[in-house]
């Protein structure tokens, strides 16, 4: 459920019940159930074709469901067309009307609602101020950068005081630096307005950074729904573990509720796993290394073959002979082990997921 934080919740609860959508014989969305608390921001995350965009478009009313309901604040809107649903929508890109200025774009929804010109101007001006573009009111889309265009699109979506805000990969067409700034900006505005928001993305970093809860989707259904920290640190399925963050696949043996990986016993996330060989999914942050002389040999001793500097942290690639393992650590630590160093790895005893060949999820 939504976290009970003290926040401005003008928003309403949004429920998706058994929502299904087929295209011919392809099932794009398979009985999806999802409830967004008032004012909550839920990010749907998954690879392309997983059904996340379909879910968003069904909520928007841009497509018709084959089954199930969409409920806004207790009111069933399943049969309402998009124009009657009061949703604010921000598209991937190029959604601003090119023959209107920024402020005309923002005021357009108000014009359709027959607001007076004075009121339109006031409200549109406020919205542009909210997204920090007061000085750009009279620019056309072609005179705005990609990031500015998306801000105007956000202002336009919010100007009509919608019940729900829907964001369809709004950052994916922008370059990296603009992306992270605008991401934080969207979150600030969303908290400010307190609107219930569904955010669709294929970028896990984006989803983890912005959302109250993240829903990881695959093949038309939710694999896991939970707060970002939970999805990251306790993935419910191997698919989630592999899709969210980087993962080392290390062969091991399950024995009585623990998995033994190269001499280290690790607890299991999944209970009741039959004994036998399995792949353990180990996060790079759970791998640490010590560089000493005279390490001798051992299952976890290897050679550093590459160090990737990522800023505050660094990612070290270690060759164990039959296996390559990634370890992530503060850059100051990684500096002790340049490429060529002999190192001994240690695995933090966090619970891990295991994967067996027969349960390997196939790419859909």
């Amino acid at each position, binding site marked *: 459920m939504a976290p009970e934080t003290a926040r401005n919740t003008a928003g309403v609860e949004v429920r998706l019940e058994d929502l299904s959508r087929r295209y011919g014989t392809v099932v794009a969305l398979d009985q999806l159930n999802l409830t967004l608390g008032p004012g909550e921001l839920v990010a749907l995350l998954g690879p392309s074709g997983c059904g996340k965009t379909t879910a968003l478009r069904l909520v928007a009313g841009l497509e018709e469901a084959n089954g199930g309901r969409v409920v806004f604040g207790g009111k069933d809107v399943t049969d309402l067309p998009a*124009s009657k649903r009061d949703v604010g929508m921000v598209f991937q*890109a190029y959604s601003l009307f090119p*023959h209107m200025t920024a402020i005309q774009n923002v005021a357009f929804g108000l014009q359709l609602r027959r607001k007076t010109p004075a009121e339109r101007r006031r409200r549109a001006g406020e919205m542009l101020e909210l997204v920090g573009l007061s000085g750009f009111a009279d620019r056309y889309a072609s005179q705005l950068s990609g990031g500015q265009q998306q801000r105007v699109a956000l202002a336009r979506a919010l100007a009509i005081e919608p019940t729900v805000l829907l964001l369809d990969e709004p950052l994916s067409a922008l370059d990296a630096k603009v992306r992270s700034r605008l991401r934080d900006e969207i979150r600030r505005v969303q908290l400010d307005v307190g609107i219930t928001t569904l955010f669709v993305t294929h970028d896990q970093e984006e989803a983890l950074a912005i959302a109250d809860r993240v829903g990881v989707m695959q093949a038309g259904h939710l694999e896991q729904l939970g707060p970002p920290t939970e999805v990251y640190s306790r993935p419910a399925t191997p698919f989630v573990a592999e899709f969210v963050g980087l993962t080392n696949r290390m062969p091991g043996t399950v024995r009585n509720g623990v998995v033994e990986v190269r001499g280290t016993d690790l607890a299991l996330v999944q209970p009741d796993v039959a004994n036998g060989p399995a792949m353990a999914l180990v996060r790079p942050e759970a791998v640490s290394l010590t560089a000493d002389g005279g390490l001798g040999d051992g299952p976890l001793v290897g050679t550093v073959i590459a160090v990737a500097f990522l800023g505050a942290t660094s990612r070290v690639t270690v060759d164990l002979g039959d296996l390559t393992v990634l370890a992530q650590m503060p850059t100051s630590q990684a500096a002790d082990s340049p490429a060529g160093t002999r190192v001994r790895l240690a695995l933090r005893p966090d619970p891990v997921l295991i994967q067996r060949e027969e349960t390997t999820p196939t790419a859909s």
Partner: protein
Amino acid sequence: MRRLSLSWLGALPFFVYVGLFLLLPTAIIVVGSFTAPGGGFTLANFSGIDKPFMVRAFTTSLSVSAVSAVAGAVLGAILAYAVVTGRPDGMLRRTIMSASGVLAQFGGVALAFAFIATISTVGFVYIFLQQHGIDIYPKGVWLYEPPGVTLIYLYFQIPLMLLVFLPALDGIKPQWREATQSLGGTTWHYWRYVAGPLLAPAFLGCTLLLFANAFSAYATIAALLTNGGPYVPLQIQALLTSESEQTQPGLAQGLAFAMIVIVVIVMTLYALLQRRTSRWLQ
């Protein structure tokens, strides 16, 4: 400096050629239309234009061009919309596009014959309708009159409209319709406030192009109206092929110059509208 002049040499053949066969003839027209028979500047060559049959030639040419341009633009835009709502890489679209490429160029002798074979009094469709009690010529044969010429021109105007207007329609993004919907707009609102204003410059520009196209056309009416008719190109033909050139040597140049001026004005407006369109609908 030596390199520069060598560079210019590379483009010389082209400039010499277009100078001889494009710029020189144009200059002959422009200069000739202002030159008196004995040399020296004159406006007398244009005085022939105000004779009643010349005025009629201009009004007929202009009105047939205008009507066929507007009708061709409307029908061509409707066809373009029907094409653009289909699969973008579908066989239907590719077939229609390449057929239009041929038909848009299909002015001239064959086109006139095609309509003679279709709806003249010996034509297939005329005879068929006649046998079923429908007379398409209750008040006389209009095939050789302006309405008939307009109809025939539609045969290349509609495909031309399809070719030049389709890129604009392709530039309309589905997000704009969806954004309008989510902002509370109906289909009417979408066409009234979004698609309509966005397409208007392109539509207007393409209509102007069609106008210039019809106004410049000569071969079709020449083949259709073997005895001449009230059209500017046929007046030029008459002047070029008859002895009357001896009596009015500058009039053909004057008419040609007037045609060029009209087409240049129309095409300039077209280019300006195209520029706006390309800014909106890339």
